[in-house]
């Protein structure tokens, strides 16, 4: 939405100019927010109103402004953004504006330009020729790029709590602690995912190794098989644990079914080696080396797998992006159209994903550590819920609710 601020003065109440202006804004598909209104006390006193008018497109807003001006609306001139050139590749000018992931507009040459994508912790590069503005990371900036500095001419539109309907996120929007009941919320989350699937939303999972280690992998497989996962974000270790579990029954030497397992840590390395030998996860599925597990389910059900590495990783498994800058780019791109994301027992990966999310992505964070949940959900105000719990019962209950046909829309 692009916006302008208008001011009305005069006998706007007695002349019905104020209601006329507000009606015209609405009938043109735009909306308004009255910032200030002073109504004259005596008969001859004039009144004043300051109104922010927002429309879908710049063209629609221009046309509306033209009409409103005819009825006496004065459009308040806003200041343009200030710009400075990037002094070197990968370096922003001092005092560069740091973005949030909220919808942001910059005013340039008297027009509002939306910054795309809505990406946090970036600078804003302005392209005069194309009248476009984009959020840029350090690696993306080249010497001489015009970068927005200071705060002038910038408008941020925070995500608003919906007034038309209440969904799980907007209703709860908080953290459910370890000692609080969760079943009703998990069932409601199941319904939300059902609605998302029906509406062709994109559901992403960020999966931590604890899923495999606690034996919750089978529940995640049920979600994948039922079509509730479009994209899986994980590290090298998650994939390695999952493969190890399938091939050796252990994950990092632990067996969820047996109190004491044999083989120990070496199973982990043998599993990685098997995938490397096969030429990757998909190849291992094709060659029937990998016949079960989360990664297998992802390959079989066309779930987009986005694997990125960490320093302590063994291997890596082929297909894991180990260059962190490259990994950021890929993750950002793969998160751009995600409507729902579940951050499951993967604190570092979850925080990385949360920092890259578009503002409207609905976010669920599940972790046994309250601090981890708190840090993840604060990235998505009004769009997130956190559950402090072991991931295994959570996934079991969610998979049960979705696969036992309990969902009634």
């Amino acid at each position, binding site marked *: 939405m692009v916006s302008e601020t208008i001011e009305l*003065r*005069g*006998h706007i109440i*007695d*002349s*019905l*100019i104020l*209601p*006329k202006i507000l009606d015209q804004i609405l009938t043109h598909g735009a909306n308004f927010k009255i910032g200030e209104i002073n109504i004259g006390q005596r*008969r*001859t006193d*004039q009144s004043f109103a300051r109104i922010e008018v927002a429309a879908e497109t710049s063209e629609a807003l221009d046309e509306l402004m033209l009409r409103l001006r*005819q*009825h*006496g609306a004065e459009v308040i001139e806003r200041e343009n953004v200030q710009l400075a050139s990037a002094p070197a590749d990968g370096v922003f000018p001092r005092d560069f504006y740091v973005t949030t992931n909220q919808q942001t507009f910059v005013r340039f040459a008297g027009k509002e330009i939306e910054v795309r994508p809505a990406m946090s912790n970036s600078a804003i590069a302005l392209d005069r020729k194309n009248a476009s503005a984009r959020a840029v990371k350090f690696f993306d900036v080249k010497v001489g790029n015009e970068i927005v500095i200071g705060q002038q001419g910038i408008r941020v539109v925070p995500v608003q709590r919906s007034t038309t309907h209440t969904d799980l996120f907007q209703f709860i929007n908080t953290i459910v602690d370890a000692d609080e009941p969760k079943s009703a919320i998990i069932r409601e989350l199941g319904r939300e995912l059902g609605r998302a699937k029906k509406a062709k939303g994109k559901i992403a999972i960020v999966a931590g190794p604890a899923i495999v280690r606690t034996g919750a992998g089978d529940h995640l497989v049920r979600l994948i098989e039922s079509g509730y996962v479009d994209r899986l974000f994980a590290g090298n270790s998650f994939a390695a644990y999952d493969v190890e579990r399938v091939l050796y029954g252990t994950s990092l030497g632990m067996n969820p079914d047996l109190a004491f397992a044999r083989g120990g840590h070496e199973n982990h390395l043998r599993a990685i080696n098997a995938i490397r030998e096969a030429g990757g996860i998909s190849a291992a599925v094709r060659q029937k080396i990998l016949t079960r597990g989360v990664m297998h389910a992802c390959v079989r059900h066309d779930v987009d797998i986005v694997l990125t590495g960490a320093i302590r990783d063994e291997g890596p498994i082929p297909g894991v992006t180990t260059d962190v800058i490259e990994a950021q780019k890929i993750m950002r791109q793969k998160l751009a159209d995600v409507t729902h994301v579940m951050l499951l027992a993967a604190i570092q990966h979850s925080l990385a994903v949360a920092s890259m999310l578009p503002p409207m992505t609905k976010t669920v964070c599940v972790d046994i550590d309250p601090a981890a949940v708190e840090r993840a959900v604060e990235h998505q105000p009004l769009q997130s819920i956190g559950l402090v719990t072991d991931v295994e019962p959570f996934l079991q209950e969610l998979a049960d609710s979705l696969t036992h046909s309990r969902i009634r829309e």
Partner: protein
Amino acid sequence: MRELLLCPPDYYGIEYEINPWMSRARGAEAALVQKQWKQLHATLSNLHCEVHLISPRPGLPDMVFTANAGLTVGRKFIPSNFRHKERAGEQPFFATWMEQHSYEVSWLPQNLFFEGEGDALFGGDTLFCGYKFRSDIQSHRALADNLGCLVISVELVDPRFYHLDTCFCPLPDGAAFWFPSAFDDYGQRAIREHVVDLIDVSPEEAMHFSCNAVVIERDIVLPEGAPKLVTTLEGRDYRCHELPMSEFIKAGGACKCLTMFMPQREKC
């Protein structure tokens, strides 16, 4: 005694087209023009009005429509800022004349179009102002600032009724006659809220410029062609003086357009 300003129609003619009534192909008949104007002059003079005359100027055919010269309240004269360049040349002549006759000339900002009494009529203490075709609504606020009165701004939506005085005529008893569909819904509502007693003029009679009337106490000077309105007004004890105005209607004007009150109101 009311004082009025008229301008002899010596240079009047349809020389350009700035409203839907004007057609250069349909010119005014000079002899008839003189006859109709003189009849108006005589009628107003007989109503114990002091009629002042401003000298007409060649090249300014519409100067005859003195209502558009400005708005006079007490000894203050607020000159018009004409929208069309064809009429802009009238402004200095009217301003100078008023100044010479001891009126304080109070200018509105030059960037605000305002066409005088044509778009500004008092109904009681309230100044009703029309906007869109000729005057800007912004000029109304400037008027309210200048005069300190309540200004009701109403949007005109029918280009044939491009000035307020072509579709709205306040009466001294607080009533008014008007042609409602010349206004948008909000304008109609605003007028209804501020004028309790409204007489609707039919579309056929409105097309004869019946609302373009000069009201001097109980006397109403209006163009002929509105028998229903005349009957209504006479039923309310007004004396109606119906005049032929065909040659001025060709330019989109009639009795009221040809007359400016000096002043329209003594004070706000």
